[in-house]
């Protein structure tokens, strides 16, 4: 017995360091080449096949042992409790000389003034500091809480961007309640199918949403049920919320290798009933094509309805150096208003985009593979108004934490077009040159047991 024990200790003392050394060597990639001594016939850079395949026995009978570990991977993923704490910081500074007219219209009289419309030459200096603290707690196997606080300067605007609790009902149903960001639709350029962000015209502001969400997996996709209230829905905020302030939605996702189909409806009594549908499919293992549609109907008068639709594709070319996306969008929604007894214009609901035919594009070119330098150009054009906004630019990350960018936002087309007054520039200048630098970084700590 003593002899067996001693020999056991010997085996442990001699073999264990060898096994662990082998593992370390493989993980220490700098040492990988030294693991594979080069034979004379082989290219110097190839690992020595001889060393790698010279073991006598390499297929262990693991049988029951591995089976016993059973659901450990799934369990370790879903049953551990603990926390993730993350801090994110971003510091942005820059300047933007710009003009109240585009250079090619400089000799002409500017259109009549509008709010926030700048005439002549101006230079805007900008600075923005943002921070975010995120606490993600897995309190029990099934119950998880996430809180996210943001603070911005110079607005001194602290806000809670996420604060929700979720419950996993044995992987049959996932429920989540609280302040959360729910997105519907594909929305690469025109997010008109994200109907959960729509507000009644008399809403004071688009406030935070409080919602209850239930996801029921079915196949790869599933059904989503939600009830959503937004402080902007009622004049008094969430404190004196009534049943009529709550909107209700249902969405079904059918995901298969042929297509990814979504169809959903959202009802709120102060807005039209909106039904959205989207379908995406990947062609030739590389090109993503997609289409979306929206049908909005006055639920008290079904004859009063509008529809919108869009379709586009996304692809990459030249060994992923060039990314291109383009989209056509028919917007059938117009701003709804009426003139009251005092001949005042009362807006019932503001359309999120310009009525009619719209085209958008995004182009990103990375000339050097593996380098962060990228040239981009994005734009939107409305055919009905002959108005466009375009922003070409260049972005470069010389360091992981530093981003430099230069862009030239401009408005094109008719000078009384919407984008001439409402474009990418904060001051709605139709032509500007923006230089900027951004420092950003984050710290994340997690512990799960």
């Amino acid at each position, binding site marked *: 017995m003593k002899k067996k024990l001693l020999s056991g200790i010997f085996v442990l003392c001699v073999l264990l360091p060898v096994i662990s050394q082998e593992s370390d060597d493989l993980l220490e990639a700098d040492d990988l080449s030294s693991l594979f001594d080069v034979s004379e016939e082989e290219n110097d850079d190839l*690992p020595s096949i001889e060393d790698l395949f010279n073991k006598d026995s390499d297929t*262990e009978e693991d049988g029951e042992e591995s089976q016993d570990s059973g659901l450990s991977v799934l369990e370790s993923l879903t049953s551990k409790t603990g926390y993730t704490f993350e801090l994110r910081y971003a510091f942005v500074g820059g300047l933007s000389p710009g003009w109240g007219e585009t250079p090619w219209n400089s000799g002409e009289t500017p259109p009549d003034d509008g709010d926030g419309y700048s005439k002549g030459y101006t230079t805007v200096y900008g600075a923005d500091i943002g921070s975010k603290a995120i606490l993600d707690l897995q309190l029990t196997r099934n119950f998880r809480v996430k809180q996210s606080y943001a603070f911005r300067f110079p607005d001194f605007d602290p806000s809670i961007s996420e604060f929700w609790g979720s419950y996993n009902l044995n992987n049959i149903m996932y429920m989540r309640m609280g302040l959360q960001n729910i997105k519907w639709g594909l929305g690469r350029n025109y997010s008109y199918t994200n109907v959960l962000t729509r507000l009644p015209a008399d809403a004071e502001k688009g406030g935070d949403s409080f919602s209850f969400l239930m996801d029921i997996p079915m196949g790869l996709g599933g059904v989503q049920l939600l009830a959503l209230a937004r402080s902007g829905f009622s004049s008094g905020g969430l404190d004196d919320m009534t049943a009529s302030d709550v909107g209700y939605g249902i969405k079904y996702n059918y995901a298969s290798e042929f297509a990814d189909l979504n169809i959903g409806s959202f009802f709120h009594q102060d807005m039209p009933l909106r039904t959205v549908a989207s379908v995406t499919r990947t062609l030739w293992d590389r090109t993503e094509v997609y289409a979306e549609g929206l049908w909005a109907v006055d639920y008290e008068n079904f004859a009063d309805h509008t529809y919108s639709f869009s379709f586009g594709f996304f692809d990459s070319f030249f060994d992923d150096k060039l990314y291109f996306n383009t989209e056509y969008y028919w917007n059938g929604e117009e701003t709804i208003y009426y003139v009251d007894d005092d001949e005042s214009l009362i807006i019932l609901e503001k359309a999120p985009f310009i009525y009619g035919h719209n085209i958008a594009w995004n182009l990103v070119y990375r000339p050097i593979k593996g380098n962060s330098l990228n040239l981009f150009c994005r734009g939107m054009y409305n055919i009905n108004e002959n108005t466009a906004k375009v922003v070409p630019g260049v972005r470069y990350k010389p360091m992981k934490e530093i981003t430099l960018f230069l862009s030239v936002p401009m408005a094109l087309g008719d000078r009384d077009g919407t984008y001439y007054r409402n474009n990418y520039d904060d001051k709605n200048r139709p032509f500007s040159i923006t230089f900027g630098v951004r420092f950003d970084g984050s710290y994340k700590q997690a512990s799960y047991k």
Partner: protein
Amino acid sequence: MKKILIILFFVIPSFLMAEDYQKLLELADSLVNYPDHDFSGQYTITQNKPGQGQTVSVAAIFRRDSQDTYVIVIQEPSINKGQGYLKQGRTLWFYDPESKRFNSTSSTDRFQNSNARNSDFTQSTLAMDYDVISGEEVKLGSYDCWLLELEANNTEVTYPKMKIWISKDGLVRMTEDYSLSGQHLRSTYIPDYYNIGGTFVPKRLLFEDQLRGATINGKFQKERTLIDISSPSFKDLPNSVFSKSFLESVNR
């Protein structure tokens, strides 16, 4: 059935006909495919980029070959934690918890910018996707192997040409992946396997990129990725694991 096939190949003489090579591919596929079971495992992916150091990723893999689907959840590094992949047939979605969006991606794309491809995590379809052009018996270290030259019979595969070393027990030990023009793109080494009741799971996969790397001290060093697979299991998994909702729920 697998065991019978293995025995057959043990007694087969060293010359094989083209149809035998195709059967050899079928055997190699069948040993590492799990049509009757779900599979789960933890993959530790160590990426070495010469001059840039090492990065380590940890991913949980769930496979259901009977439905040609898999789910991958990234657990480490923390910056990518919660990212996930969901594959169904030839469609592969990538989930980003930051944007909360599913975007389709390609099976032929690099996995987390490593030398592994997304297609390396799915079931093996060598016999279906490739025709054997030639074969010979060779030595690979201490293994007697069949070295087969393969050409793809469709355009949906990641590599149009391959060389593949299959040991006499039917297991793939090494592959060399080529472009259509014959450019050597990548080598893959699979030195050892788990044997779980006659079904095999690779223990380690070593990928070596033949084109990507850096010249250090006058010598070109190639990028390598080592995947260590632990906790393999063939226990049934809940259906909900293979869903978008699951990826959204485990993104902590």
